[in-house]
């Protein structure tokens, strides 16, 4: 069965410091991995995805994520956090070898950047 875990409900980071939001996954075949961000009372916005190729994926707003097959992880990172990065972040996965194309969503991690 496919699953995704975001082990931290909340992450607190000081502005200017690097940030990491963790995501681990479980799929039988090839993982398709996604990160989305949600600001208060807004829809989800796509940040980046990993399908194949380079393990380091760059996305919107200076975010990047590293696909680690051995650790089954896809952590979201940013070198220098901004207060405006404060939001809810969701990791999602699907099995690329499965005809069921639905995404499995993590529970979300609230990111708080303090000035």
């Amino acid at each position, binding site marked *: 069965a496919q699953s995704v875990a975001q082990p931290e409900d909340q992450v607190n980071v000081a502005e200017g410091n690097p940030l990491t939001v963790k995501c681990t996954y479980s799929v039988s075949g090839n993982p398709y991995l996604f990160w*989305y961000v949600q600001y208060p009372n807004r*829809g*989800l916005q796509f940040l980046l*995805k990993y399908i194949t190729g380079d393990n380091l994926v760059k996305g919107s707003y200076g975010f990047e994520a590293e696909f680690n097959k051995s650790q089954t992880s896809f952590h979201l990172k940013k070198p220098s956090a901004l207060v405006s990065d404060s939001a809810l972040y*969701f990791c999602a996965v699907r099995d*690329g070898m499965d005809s069921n*194309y*639905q995404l499995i969503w993590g*529970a*979300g991690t609230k990111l708080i950047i303090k000035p």
Partner: protein
Amino acid sequence: DAMVIQNPRYQVTQFGKPVTLSCSQTLNHNVMYWYQQKSSQAPKLLFHYYDKDFNNEADTPDNFQSRRPNTSFCFLDIRSPGLGDAAMYLCATSRVSGAFRNTGELFFGEGSRLTVL
């Protein structure tokens, strides 16, 4: 710009009074989804359309129905809203293609927040 538009952004209704939420897209995506999201939780898939084919999630209550009259539009009908149906309702689209139904990323609208009095 191509996008997904949801109306209304905020909807207040009374207990048991039917509600319709709408979603339109200019992306020409073949799949449209309706999600329910409560209190900053993960979005919960209610149903989706793959082209004209309707796919209902097993645990979606019968109180929720949907229509997709054409590629661009999709509606969520809540026949008799209860207090537990108060939530953010998110419409999303994606392009699904290929033998393994490979999907690109989902594009979301801004959501419709439903309040039930």
